[in-house]
């Protein structure tokens, strides 16, 4: 099947903050207009708009894409909203890709926005109906239960300690200290800080978790003939993949994200990647919790099962290591406005591969990176491979 080649040519984002005064539309507009400015394009140059946003309940607005559309540049244009929970940010970039790869459009503006501070008293209230209404809700579950149970299964399977995993939180929050848009960057955080933070649901502690946040991110995608005209540094979409496991989380092996592996295999095949550990130079796996970075690195086939923590301890995943992981600072450090956080990872690869990441720049002129997100009923993996 013939597909048109697609590049990312521009990116922009708002700061990630705890409580934004801006409306959701105003946040979306700020990110979208910055993305357009970054490649000297205007709305008139955009053929279609993809909007990514997670549950309606966060913003407290139903039919959220229609509400957000003017802030996303959708006035008078074809728009579509993608939604696979936490996987949305990467999935929206995938939708932008197939809008262009199919030949339907030449230019697409992809905008992801989340305003979690609207949701009172806490966004956990919005998550409660993701559990099975009949067999689980009667127990009064919250989202932390899933992560705590999954983290414990992962730790126990591979004999990992809390200390092993806390290294991820330390790395990402320190990396985020170099990100101008970050909410929780901290150059001085230590493993002890993580291990001494409040226990939320054992083994999950406060600093193992990313913060709820408000923010928006946008990218501009273009067909090859347009991309070559607007920039001399197009960042090509080389592969995309997504996959869902069973909706019953009690029918999955929680110690390994098979759905991420399946999504990665789809993306690697399209990108012609046969040895991901050699051919991928930067990774931005989804890290809403510190153990999830390790979990996802293994699902992305970048480390053997249970071995990502050892690589972290050896410094391999530091910005100057052999495989920099979350050089942005990730969700743990930059913040976690759900869909925007995952598109931030795609934008980070764009900046890194163009060597425009400033203080966050990884050395060695990286040529290829992978970004991944995860979500829905904790069973979706979305993966994109970018290269120059």
């Amino acid at each position: 099947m013939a597909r048109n080649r697609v590049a990312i040519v521009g990116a922009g984002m708002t700061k990630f903050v705890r409580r934004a005064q801006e409306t959701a539309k105003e946040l979306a507009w700020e990110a979208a207009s910055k993305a357009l400015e970054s490649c000297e394009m205007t709305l008139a140059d955009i053929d279609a708009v993809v909007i990514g946003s997670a549950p309606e309940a966060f913003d407290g607005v139903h039919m959220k894409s229609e509400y957000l559309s003017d802030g996303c540049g959708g006035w008078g244009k074809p728009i579509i909203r993608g939604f696979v929970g936490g996987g949305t940010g990467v999935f929206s970039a995938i939708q932008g890709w197939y809008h262009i790869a199919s030949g339907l459009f030449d230019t697409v503006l992809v905008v992801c926005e989340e305003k979690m501070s609207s949701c009172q008293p806490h966004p956990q209230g919005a998550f409660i109906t993701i559990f099975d209404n009949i067999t689980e809700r009667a127990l009064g579950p919250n989202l932390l239960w899933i992560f705590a149970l999954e983290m414990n299964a992962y730790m126990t399977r591979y004999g990992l300690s809390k200390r092993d995993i806390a290294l991820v939180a330390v790395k990402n929050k320190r990396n985020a200290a170099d990100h101008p848009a970050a909410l929780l960057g901290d150059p001085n955080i230590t493993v002890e800080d993580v291990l001494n933070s409040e226990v939320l649901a054992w083994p999950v502690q406060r600093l193992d978790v990313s913060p709820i946040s408000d923010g928006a991110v946008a990218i501009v995608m273009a067909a090859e003939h347009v991309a070559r005209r607007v920039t001399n540094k197009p960042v090509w979409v080389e592969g995309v993949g997504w996959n869902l496991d069973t909706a019953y989380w009690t029918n999955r092996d929680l110690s390994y994200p098979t759905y991420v592996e399946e999504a990665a295999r789809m993306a690697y095949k399209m990108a012609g990647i046969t040895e991901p550990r050699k051919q991928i130079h930067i990774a931005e796996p989804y890290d809403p919790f510190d153990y999830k970075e390790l979990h996802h690195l293994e699902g992305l086939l970048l480390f053997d099962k249970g071995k990502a923590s050892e690589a972290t301890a050896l410094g391999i995943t530091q910005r100057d290591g052999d495989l920099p992981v979350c050089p942005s600072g990730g969700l743990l450090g930059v913040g976690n406005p759900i869909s925007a956080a995952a598109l931030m990872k795609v934008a980070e690869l764009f900046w890194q591969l163009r060597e425009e990441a400033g203080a966050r720049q990884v050395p060695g002129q990286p040529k290829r990176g992978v970004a991944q997100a995860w979500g829905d009923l904790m069973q979706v993996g979305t993966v994109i491979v970018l290269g120059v």
Partner: protein
Amino acid sequence: MSLLERIAHPNQAKVWYGEIPIQSRYTVGITGERFFREIKDNGRLWGTRCPHCDLVYIPPRLYCERCFAHLEEWVEVPTTGRVHTFTVVHLDLDGNPLPEPRIIAFIQIDGTDGGLIHDLGEVDPEEVCIGMCVEAVFKDPAERRGSITDIRYFRPVG
């Protein structure tokens, strides 16, 4: 045929009751702050203007949805307008008859390219017509809270 279709009352089927326990706190946003402060403090309406598209937005916007320009030009607009369309509402949200029917209108604000949805007051439903000139009636300053209901209603001019 499903069980629910066969039983006389839904409670005869095994059910679990639950709710989504959230409340939303909506910020009025960057332009909303000024728009509602002017209503509350001064009983005035302000819009923002796009110089490229020559449009005056009310409610005011931070950006032009057509050309994406950042809108920084604020213009005071009249508190008068015309009824673009209207309806007469007889039932409340639960389907119960209202003591008095409400007249709800889309009022095109004079000198702008937009308008507001609001109640019409001091007029009988039979007297309302599309194109009618109306003006905003604000609550007393002490009663205003910085919300769209600081405007009590619009009433016919003259």
